[in-house]
């Protein structure tokens, strides 16, 4: 058995950086609650595409970077993203076979789980409960998933990330 040399780490890294950038880029006030969880979408895609390279560890590191970037409790996003990466890894063979709309629904569930864990952590840290709009971001993320999927797939093929 030969291991293929892993290629395109830079491409993966850049997509994560862009996702983090989209997370902190200033938006008008009304749009803030609708900001999709870009980082989760990108993490789910790479875990689906390259489960042997991207997984819980990457999710955790991404989460720590996000916590520092947005000033949340250190570990809040790390916990949820590591868990999302784990669930995606467990189901990646099934999800890959789904048609795109069914994938979107699965992604919605994953995004909701991530949101819920964040809410629990905030609740334990005694921050005030968020409004119902808190749950809008996963929905936006669900509708964005097909595009994210197609763009990242084309990127992966173009740069032959494996």
């Amino acid at each position, binding site marked *: 058995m030969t291991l293929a040399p892993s290629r395109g780490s830079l491409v993966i890294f850049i997509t994560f950086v862009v996702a983090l950038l989209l997370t902190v880029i200033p938006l008008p006030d009304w749009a803030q609650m609708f900001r999709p969880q870009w980082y989760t979408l990108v993490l789910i895609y790479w875990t689906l595409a390259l489960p042997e390279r991207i997984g819980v560890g990457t999710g955790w590191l991404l989460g720590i970077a996000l916590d520092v970037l*947005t*000033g*949340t409790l*250190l570990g809040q996003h790390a916990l949820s993203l590591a868990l999302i990466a784990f669930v995606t890894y467990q189901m990646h063979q099934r999800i890959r076979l789904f048609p795109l709309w069914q994938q979107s629904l699965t992604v919605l569930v994953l995004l909701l789980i991530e949101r819920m864990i964040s809410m629990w952590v905030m609740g334990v*840290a005694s921050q005030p409960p968020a409004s119902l709009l808190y749950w809008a971001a996963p929905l936006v993320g669900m509708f964005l998933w097909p595009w994210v999927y197609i763009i990242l797939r084309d990127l992966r093929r173009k740069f032959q990330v494996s």
Partner: protein
Amino acid sequence: MVVDHRQHHLETVRAFLSVLVSPLHYIADLPLSATNWLTNTFASHNRLLNENRELRKENILLQAQQQKLAALEAENMRLRDLLESSFKIGDRVLVSELIAVDLDPFKQQVLINKGSSSGIYQGQPVLDANAVMGQVIHVNRFTSTVLLLTDSSHALPVQVNRNGLRTVAMGTGKIGELELPHLPNNADIQVGDLLVTSGLGGRFPPGYPVAEITSVKTEPGQHFAHVTARPTAHLDRTREALLVWTLTPFEEYQSDLAEGEPPTEESAEEATPPEADAVSSAEDVQ
């Protein structure tokens, strides 16, 4: 997470990681600062002239007020000398700019472009042109995070300017609203009263304006009145923030000496802030 929340051992880790991610903050800030730069560069001659005239007018007005203030300050000091009580007036301030990034939408915090390299310390009070904005919670090398006073984890000891009634202003998590719990129903407080910092927490220097009372509701069945206030600082609009060092009399004497030489920006920035011990013992943040 528990360690980060309860104790603060992870501050150094966070500060180190922040240096790694801070380029992202700057890139995210780029569109806005580029637009600002362009409007400044291509501003019309007329507009600049107008602005200049306005600023000059404002400057004269402020200077006139300052003259009166100097006399009052001297008088105040004389009277306090008579009473033999010491009083600190001197504060040193540093202007910093906000970096336009959206942090966690569920916390009221902003990022400023000065960090430990400029002598910022944790718990340092931050003002804007009008009033108190909040305090520094995370210090990194070149940036620091400011917790606004409307965050739900922020509490600030204040007093009513009119009669000196002391109380605590708690953040509600909503921008533009503070809450004053534990005020008895018969407390002497009215809509429109100005709240100023009382300096009791030890973190904020006394006498800076904080908020204005917007509503006082008393219900006979309740033990306490329901009082809310609106911060006078423009928390959601301001672009500059002032960082304040309270000078002890000795430091004031030193800075007076230093003012004999032509002041440079470096020397002003590198002067040592007061010891953090006195500050960290205070309990402003719950």
